[in-house]
């Protein structure tokens, strides 16, 4: 894998007259205005949902959320208090967290082992099996829904957090293995060789060398997998009835959008606030993972 490192050149410093500076500024004004308008367009919808969630119950269906901007005094946290008193939403959030944590840790563990094997262990059919993994990258999960649905029913693990984690693990694996194998292959061979000469077992090398060295890749993968499982709808909708993560809980309220908006808006905002926090905290890893996955 070739990492596309951007070559940064120091800009040549040329003395600029004030007139030239102003001229450049004016020439750029349309670009600035356009991009500001775009940024606003991208911010407003999310802000709209947040402000909607602050509307007092009596004003739903009467006032647009933007009225809060001109009259902030009408906003209230009451809807949030209400959904936290409502144990089913709180319970859904806990379920979502369980699925997301399990669905992140397990596939990373499995993929790290496999990635190491594909990168540094010799075994017959290595290339061939890895090609299959690459092929599985784009298999739509719709291909698995019906067989796994009946399998879960037969085995009796339908409608459990565990069964959802297993499904997320399997469908997270191809990308995870692909990413980690490519990262591990970049680890200098000498380090591994000397550890082997020192008589370290493969397991020891994996735990003591590969995992610590692979941390950046594991971090970006972890964020991806966490967001993917936290944000999932289709898997939980198919394999859960009473095991409802937050997306499914909101979905069940959507049929009465107008009258349930006091639950939908705050619940939806909470459900997106957590991925946003993760995103802002680990933005760098997120973008790195994205680029590793798509640009080669």
């Amino acid at each position, binding site marked *: 894998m070739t990492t*596309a490192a*951007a*070559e940064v050149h120091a800009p040549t410093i040329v003395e600029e007259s004030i007139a030239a500076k102003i001229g450049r500024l004016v020439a*750029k004004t349309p670009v600035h205005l356009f*991009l500001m308008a*775009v*940024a606003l367009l*991208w*911010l407003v919808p*999310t802000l709209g949902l947040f402000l909607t969630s602050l509307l007092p119950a009596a004003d739903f269906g009467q*006032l*647009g*959320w*933007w009225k809060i901007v001109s009259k902030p005094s009408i906003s209230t946290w009451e809807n949030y208090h209400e959904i936290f008193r409502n144990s089913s939403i709180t319970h859904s959030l806990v379920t979502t967290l369980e699925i997301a944590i399990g669905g992140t840790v397990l596939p990373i563990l*499995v*993929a790290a*082992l*496999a990635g190491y094997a594909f990168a540094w*262990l010799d*075994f017959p059919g290595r290339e061939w*099996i890895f*090609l299959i993994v*690459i*092929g*599985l990258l*784009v*298999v739509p999960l*719709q*291909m698995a*829904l*019906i067989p796994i*649905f009946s399998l879960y029913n037969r085995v009796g693990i339908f409608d459990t957090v565990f069964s959802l984690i*297993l499904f997320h693990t*399997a469908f997270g*694996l*191809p990308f995870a293995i692909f990413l980690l194998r490519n990262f591990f292959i970049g680890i200098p061979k000498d380090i591994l060789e000397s550890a082997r000469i020192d008589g370290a077992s*493969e397991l020891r090398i994996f735990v003591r060398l590969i995992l610590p060295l692979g941390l950046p890749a594991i971090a970006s993968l972890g964020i991806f997998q966490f967001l993917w499982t*936290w*944000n*999932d709808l*289709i898997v939980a*909708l*198919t394999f859960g009835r009473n095991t409802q993560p937050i997306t499914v809980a909101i979905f069940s309220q*959507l*049929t009465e*959008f107008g009258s349930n*908006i006091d639950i*939908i808006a705050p619940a*939806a905002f909470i*459900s*997106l606030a957590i*991925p946003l926090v*993760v*995103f802002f905290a680990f933005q760098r890893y*997120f973008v790195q993972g*994205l*680029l590793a996955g*798509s*640009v*080669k």
Partner: protein
Amino acid sequence: MFLAPAVFFLTVWILYPLIDTVRRSFLYRDTNRWIGFHNYKEIFTLDTTVTAIKNNAIWIGVVPALVTAIGLIFAVLTERIRWSVAFKTVVFMPMAISLFAAGVIWRVMDQEDPHLGALNAGIGAIHDTFRPPGALPDAEPSTAGLTGSPQRGFVLQTPLRPGDVARLGLTGISPDNVPHGAVQAANPTPKAHGITGVVWRDFKPGGGKTGQVEQGELGLPGVTVELRDTAGKRIDSTSTEDNGTFAFDDVDASDYRAAIGPKTFAKPFGGIAWLGPKLITPALIIAYTWVWAGFAMVVIAAGLAAIPREVLEAARTDGGTEWQVFRRVTVPLLAPVLSVVFITMLINVLKVFDIVLSVAPGSSQDDANVIALAMWRSSFGGVNDYGLGAAIAVFLFLLVIPVLALNVRRFRREA
């Protein structure tokens, strides 16, 4: 040993289902009865699946190109500003949240009533600037002989000559909708060489006589009154005073008609039904593009950063305009990155699902249907037609196989 867990997961959850789904696609519903290609035939004959395929074709035709183009524009433009990091963060943000939650966001934005849906509120503000709503959008004539329609205006059929007086009474105006500043209606005074008249709210609590200006009835200010010739051609127009009176001075001796112009009855912007059956797919595409533009921008920006500056500088020193440099140098050099973004979006669009469920209200979901949703609904939406569901899944899989082959070939070439 290291590989065993991965092989277990991939075999049980992906490879085995792959084969089993293909097998089930030839079976009748949830039985073991072999029915050949019947399920596949149904995909192309059932209303729901045909709609789904048509809609998905629109998605495929529009979204990958749109998202790639927007990503390219943003990536190139952000290179010229200092606050590019802030801009990229804002545009990229929707990528972190679920398509489902993004759908809820747009469900709120897309509400039809301009007092609730921000999108329609914005369009309404522009609409009302160019076509301001009339003073009396819902009024109706009460005076006998005042006929017509809100679109063409209401005409008093009685011929008028200079010195005559026209009384144009209207009803159907609720107290809230009486124009601001209205006072007691006045009976117009005739003028020797002019035509005068009054437009008033011909109603007072407790009744009153129609066609007569009475104490307690309000004049209607700001109403457009037109003077027309007998053929209906507009000769002059004026606006009424606070007491409802109007006057056309110095009118040539002839027969005329007085009319209340259509401008008075122009309806305010009522809102576009984004979530209705006709516009639901465009509304979904807007929401989806809002989510994915950031992905395209970030990937393309990384590709852009990898282009050696000297190449672009050389093109500029050779006298190329910014547009030429962009068109002839930047875009060709970016071609591999652009195609990666395009193909990624193509696959995403084939599998689009969550956002349809959250943006489209139940009443529009049939019209918003897409392949992945049709697969889910026929299998788990209460119908339990696993045979059809499996066939749709296989159809979906066949559509992504070219990309699968491409990925495998690219990897083998590199290895």
